[in-house]
């Protein structure tokens, strides 16, 4: 299969890339890892007139923490970089658990976290993880940079808030005020399949008490779902059995699953509940072991 014909630019700086997008006409796409865009182009679900390949733009392949703890993930940071990251392992349990579950090991060589956020697939894992963490996307255009919180960034299935001449240059995760806990669980039929259900839980703890909670749901709605009521039920609470059960019920209620070849709506909703319980109990156990 071939993509339909397109013009190709491989700029060497962000400025040139933004210029190319601005001059690019009605339908230009930014190519980073290409692990979603290229398949879509081959299937002719996407037929851009112009492809702006940013792989030659230096200085975008980083992930690092600012002195205040803000995590920054550049547009060319690959899933494989995050999977191998000591920084994530030490400071970001939810992301560290999600990274090895993205697609398959070969796709992870090229695919990027920021690209995954932009692609805005309701079954994309990173959007749920960063939603749970209260993350955001930094977009750069001719007028400069702006920071867009993730829950507003994804506007629907495969749709985001970027203007045609803007590039998502990095993703941000705000610093934790307490000790981070949480994780990501994904039900998939086999490695590399899209998530049947995915649940991201991101907690900040002070002793036994949850000081901040975020829960993101993958694959159970028209776009990534922030289970805000479930998260609110955890805030200020210890991770006691009744608190966990209540949060799991609320997360399941927030899911909007549909029956398809991956499972019935009822099954998927049940799995959301199960995953929330598992993640919160796991957090509980981890805390106990550490203490």
């Amino acid at each position, binding site marked *: 299969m*071939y*993509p339909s014909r397109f013009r190709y630019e491989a700029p060497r700086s962000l400025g040139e890339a933004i210029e190319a997008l601005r001059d690019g006409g009605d339908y230009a796409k930014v190519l980073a890892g290409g692990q979603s865009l*290229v*398949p879509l182009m*081959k299937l002719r679900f996407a037929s851009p007139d112009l492809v702006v390949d940013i792989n030659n733009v230096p200085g975008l392949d980083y992930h690092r923490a600012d002195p205040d703890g803000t995590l920054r993930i550049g547009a060319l940071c690959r899933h494989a970089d995050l999977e191998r990251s000591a920084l994530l392992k030490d400071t970001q349990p939810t992301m560290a658990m999600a990274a090895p579950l993205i697609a398959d*090991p070969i796709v992870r060589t090229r695919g990027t976290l920021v690209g995954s956020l932009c692609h805005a697939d309701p079954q994309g894992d990173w959007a749920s993880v960063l939603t749970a963490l209260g993350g955001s996307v930094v977009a750069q255009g001719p007028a400069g940079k702006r920071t867009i919180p993730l829950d507003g960034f994804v506007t629907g299935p495969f749709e985001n808030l970027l203007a045609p001449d803007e590039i998502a240059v990095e993703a941000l995760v705000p610093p934790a005020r307490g000790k981070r806990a949480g994780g990501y669980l994904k039900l998939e039929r086999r490695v590399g399949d899209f998530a049947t259900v995915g649940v991201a839980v991101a907690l900040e703890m002070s002793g036994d008490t949850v000081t901040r909670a975020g829960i993101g749901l993958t694959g159970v709605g028209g776009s990534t779902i922030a289970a805000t009521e479930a998260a609110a039920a955890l805030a200020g609470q210890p991770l006691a059995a009744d608190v966990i059960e209540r949060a799991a019920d609320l997360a399941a209620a927030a899911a909007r699953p549909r029956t398809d070849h991956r499972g019935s709506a009822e099954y998927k909703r049940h799995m959301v509940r199960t995953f929330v319980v598992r993640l919160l109990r796991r957090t509980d156990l981890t805390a106990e072991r550490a203490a």
Partner: protein
Amino acid sequence: MTIVYDDLDGQEAADVPMRRIRFSINGRKKVAEVEPRLLLSHLIRRGLGLTGTHMGCDTTNCGACTVLVDGRPVKSCTMLAVQADGHEISTVEGLASASELHPLQEGFKEEHGLQCGFCTPGMMMAAKALLDENPDPTEEDVRWALSGNLCRCTGYQNIVKSVLWAADKLRAEG
């Protein structure tokens, strides 16, 4: 390299955007003129005539087309040929020397790691990337590294054994 354009019913070939790229394949430097929509897998198979890289699903699932780009495994059906500009590509043809099979190839032979053989080049290249990074993998490491490659014949058991065989041999060779 000969280039044959599609007859575009009036849209002249001159309108087709072409780009010149320089890259290396199995250690040999090459220059190619490619249309941006050409996939890396097509450049390898048709442009370079290296048909050891197989096209299986053409949808980023099966891993049969796996090659190494700068030493890292990539599904060549999911990368544009123009993106190979300035990079080093390795395919299954680059494994063996003139007189000797690569230990991975020997391993697949010794441990019956293939039946129809279609997935084998992709399996070997994914395994090569693993062994380059981790010369002493556990069985679990091998299964993990090959989890992006599908085989419909073997049930994977002998493929895993083949890679472990190769790892032993490579370590013994030092």
